[in-house]
């Protein structure tokens, strides 16, 4: 994947003499000290990172950590004081006002925390706004707006007034307005923070499924770690204008860069974060449906000290056999596995979270099988391995 956005040594200092503040920052003087001494606010300090094509990068931090400022520096709603912001090979900081306007029209869609819908325009007119600015002819504008509305499941609401919609629906309009542009980069500023928790969770799911279809490059600001973990392919953690850690959700959770990050991630509900991949065990033996009989299966169970064994057929997971049934079959002298194999299996994929696995563990009388896309068995989960995984986290 190629880098769509490259940010290098980005600073944003609010105040009339940024040079002075910059020098103090470089001498290791803290943001608070600088505020006290020369009354300059440090928004972003020495930020460098890249955003890859088609990924969701979540910028996370508490309020005042500079995450909003950082994202606004990307499309220059806020002009950075120092540093480079290269988007698709163009240094945005060098653009003239007119060039910047055109660049924004072409490359940036933005979604806002409080939706920022225009109250005097109906839903479709809101979605059309960006196209209207680009002087797209009305018929095409309408077509693209309706398409975007369809993408966010609001088809048919085009003529409604914005204020008639619920918060969640309003933000879908905000999303559609950004989608209609067909820009490649989406900047989402706490897009779901103003919604109530249930709707927020729905919107996150929808964003993820939408993203599978449209494959935008998304920078998503959030102060909510659960949201960051759910949405982010990678996460940037900010504190006092600085980037403290960059990495995948698991890297940040299992290996916090410092105490601040560790504190931040302490409260995360691990059942949502731990996935099957982290806790599954390699199956030591499998029965082969085509060649093994009950006797062979029983023998394999004994060698790996298990009371059940999974069987494969043409390399695919086919069924499960318990030791009890196998022993009975051996006694009766049955040759085939057909009578004792249970083929109605419940399986999970490697991405399944502990929340989904736990109920299966309590219900099934065999370990939870983990399969890949080709239905091949890649691991099994037993109660012990999951509990160990949950307890283990962050102790390294």
């Amino acid at each position, binding site marked *: 994947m190629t880098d769509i956005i490259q940010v290098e040594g980005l600073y944003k200092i609010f105040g009339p003499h940024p040079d002075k503040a910059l020098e103090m920052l470089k001498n290791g003087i803290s943001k608070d000290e600088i505020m006290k001494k020369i009354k300059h606010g440090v928004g972003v300090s020495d930020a460098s990172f890249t955003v890859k094509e088609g990924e969701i990068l979540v910028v996370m931090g508490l309020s005042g950590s500079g995450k909003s400022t950082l994202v606004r520096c990307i499309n220059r*709603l806020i002009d950075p004081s120092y540093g480079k912001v290269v988007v698709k090979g163009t240094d945005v900081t060098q653009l003239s006002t007119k060039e910047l306007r055109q660049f924004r029209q072409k490359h940036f869609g933005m979604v806002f925390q409080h939706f920022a819908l225009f109250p005097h325009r109906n839903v479709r007119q809101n979605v059309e706004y*960006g196209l209207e600015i680009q002087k797209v002819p009305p018929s095409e504008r309408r077509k693209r707006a309706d398409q975007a509305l369809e993408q966010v499941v609001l088809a048919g609401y085009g003529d409604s007034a914005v204020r008639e919609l619920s918060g969640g629906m309003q933000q879908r309009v905000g999303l559609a307005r950004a989608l209609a542009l067909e820009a490649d980069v989406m900047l989402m500023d706490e897009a779901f923070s103003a919604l109530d928790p249930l709707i927020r969770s729905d919107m996150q799911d929808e964003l993820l499924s939408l993203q599978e279809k449209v494959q935008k490059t998304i920078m998503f600001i959030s102060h909510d770690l659960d949201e960051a973990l759910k949405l982010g392919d990678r996460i940037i953690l900010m504190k006092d204008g600085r980037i403290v850690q960059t990495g995948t959700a698991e890297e940040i959770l299992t290996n916090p860069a410092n105490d601040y990050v560790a504190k931040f991630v302490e409260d995360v509900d691990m059942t949502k974060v731990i996935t099957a991949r982290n806790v599954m065990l390699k199956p030591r033996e499998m029965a082969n449906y085509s060649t093994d009989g009950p006797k062979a299966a029983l023998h394999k169970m004994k060698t790996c000290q298990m009371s059940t064994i999974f069987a494969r057929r043409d390399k695919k997971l086919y069924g499960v056999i318990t030791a009890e049934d196998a022993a009975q079959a051996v006694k009766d002298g049955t040759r085939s596995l057909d009578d004792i194999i249970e083929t109605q299996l419940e399986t999970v994929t490697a991405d399944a979270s502990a929340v989904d696995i736990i109920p299966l563990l309590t219900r099934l009388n065999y370990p939870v099988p983990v399969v890949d896309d080709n239905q091949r068995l890649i691991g099994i989960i037993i109660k012990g391995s999951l509990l160990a995984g949950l307890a283990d986290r962050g102790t390294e």
Partner: protein
Amino acid sequence: MDIYRLPVGEVIESGIDFFVEHFSFATQAFSRFTETGIDMIISALMYPPPWVDILIFTALAWFLSKRIGIAAFTLLGLLLIWNMDLWAPTVSTIALILIATLLAILIGVPLGIFAALSQVFFRIITPILDLMQTMPAFVYLIPAIPFFGLGPVGAIFSTVIFSVPPAIRLTSLGIRQVPLELIEAADAFGSSISQKLFKVQLPIATPTIMAGINQTIMLALSMVVIAAMIGAKGLGGEVWKAIQRLEAGRGFEAGIGIVIVAIILDRVMQQVGGRTKASQ
């Protein structure tokens, strides 16, 4: 000991004299031209019998406000004015207000927009507006005479000066009150300054601007009465006559006429402004 007296009045007077000397030919010409226009409007309104005008105004009030009550008040109020033999002065008062308000809007709204967009201009114009609004209204009448002569044009000039501040102030306020996030949204989608102004800022500021225009109309109405002193006819002229002749009854009749016109204009404008707000 003599204290030096600052020549404030002298400076202003010589300034005005200077302008009168060099520009009054233009303002006098403008005055004659405008006066013809005003006369035309008045005679157009006076051409049909009063009841036709009254019905037209009633229909207009209903069309703009969509309120039966306001339309009924307009009908009854204007009939009362006709009945008191004040129809002709009322028509000239309405004509003066219409022209003065139109000018005030044409001057005030653009200045208000500019004041909202330019911090420097905002800082310059704010104290000037304060001065314009606290200066006693009568003072504006004095320079109006040398520039425009006695009569309706001078009255309109002083009325415009007196009534333009709220249009400027509330236009600027309305635009400044547009939420930052909406401005950011307009910018983020690559709007130019004029696209942002006409597609976002002005439509959202409209209710506030309408409130400013309503205030402008009310101030214009009060000034038109005062301007009777320099020869503006109309209801104000009737009041002025009544003062000179000490006819309390006649004075109150004209005063009631002014009140009726004021109420009609205010209610209709409030409905127009309220509707733009409700449609958002």
